[in-house]
């Protein structure tokens, strides 16, 4: 069992194909798989469907794959930060499926958990519910949401051991565990690969069983909304 690869390009070798379905971790620009996104751009894989809460910004994160027109369809909850996204969507170059944020996260978790579908009240009576099965439980209407299983999950973690056990850091965890769970193949980039046994087994956020390939690399970790307070106001 060797899960450790040298570069993002090597870690993606043999798993990319045009028209594939990718689930990506990250929220805004926080905890996004920067290196793997760059490698997918370099590989030129086309007609991608990507499930990701957001689509980066124009020149960082998944926005890069919009610039290169590699994305055919996005499944997202919020895409407001990206002018190129709007342009391509309004000109019908890009398909978009809006999912409520929690529904998107749960669809990914379900896909990795052998749950084909689940009933939620989220979205009942809205556009989201159109065409979906409705069912009442205890007097309340729910809609059926299907699970997501992706050909590939691209994920960013803080640390991994060489068996793929992962630890995330602060709010950079976000969609990364559910995205990892729903990928048939899951490739992870981390800031540090540590020897097995050096992470407390009670403190592993995502067990290595979900992780197929790992790379270590340097991350830019760009901040989208740098908001601060003055020392005086403390």
């Amino acid at each position, binding site marked *: 069992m060797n899960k450790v690869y040298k570069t993002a390009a090597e870690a993606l070798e043999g798993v990319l194909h045009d028209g594939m379905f990718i689930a990506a971790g990250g929220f805004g620009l926080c905890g996004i798989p920067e290196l793997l996104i760059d490698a997918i751009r370099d590989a030129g894989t086309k007609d991608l469907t990507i499930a990701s809460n957001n689509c980066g910004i124009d020149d960082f994160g998944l926005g890069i794959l919009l610039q290169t027109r590699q994305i055919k369809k996005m499944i997202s909850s919020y895409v407001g930060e990206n002018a190129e996204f709007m342009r391509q969507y309004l000109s019908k170059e890009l398909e978009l499926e809006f999912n409520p944020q*929690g529904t998107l996260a749960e669809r990914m978790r379900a896909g990795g958990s052998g749950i084909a579908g689940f009933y939620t009240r989220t979205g009942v009576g809205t556009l989201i519910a159109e065409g979906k099965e409705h069912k009442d439980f205890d007097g309340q209407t729910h809609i059926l949401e299907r699970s997501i299983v992706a050909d590939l999950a691209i994920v960013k973690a803080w640390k991994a051991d060489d068996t793929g056990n992962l630890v995330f850091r602060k709010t950079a965890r976000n969609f990364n565990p559910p995205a990892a769970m729903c990928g048939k193949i899951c490739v992870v980039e981390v800031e540090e690969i540590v020897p097995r046994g050096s992470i407390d087994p009670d403190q592993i956020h995502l067990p290595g069983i979900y992780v197929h390939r790992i790379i270590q690399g340097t991350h830019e970790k760009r901040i989208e909304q740098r908001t601060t307070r003055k020392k005086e106001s403390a």
Partner: protein
Amino acid sequence: MPWDRNQMAARAAAELEDGMYVNLGIGIPTLVANYVGDKDITLQSENGMLGMGPFPFEGEEDPDLINAGKQTITELDRTAYFDSATSFAMIRGGKIAAAILGAMEVAENGDLANWMIPGKLIKGMGGAMDLVAGVGRVIVVMDHTNKAGDSKILRECTLPLTGKGVVDRIITNLGVLDVVDGGLKIVELADGISEDELRNATQATIVT
């Protein structure tokens, strides 16, 4: 005089009680955190955090620590981090006592629209649909009328809904209204606002 943004936020903060876990939306709701005072409130950020602290001091920003509005924030001594599936599990599961959200329109039956203007604004609903469907109490904070002076509190929403019959209370610059059987009930008037002024600025049915 109508309430300003900070007065609306302060009024919304008065809705909160010791021990509550609360989610604040962006815009005016974010200001509510400044007015909770000594109350023991834990703020949830739906990107995966309970116990959200204030903005960091300059130079102490951490790119791995942001709120749902993508702003850099800090942690507290009660903070816990978790993934997005767990975050929305607690939201849908009713563990969050209240969400305080902005709105484009609210209808007298509690319908809420705050995510989309067809043909114009297609940013997405983010976590708003999950929040209004799941939390214990939905409190809307918004201006009573739009820039054109038209009521944002309507008999029926005209925009695509975020949730159907989900709003419990509306706090505007003119006062406070509750969603009750048959329409909206005036709970409170902003300082110097008469009931007639509020009624005239409201398209929705007001019941007594």
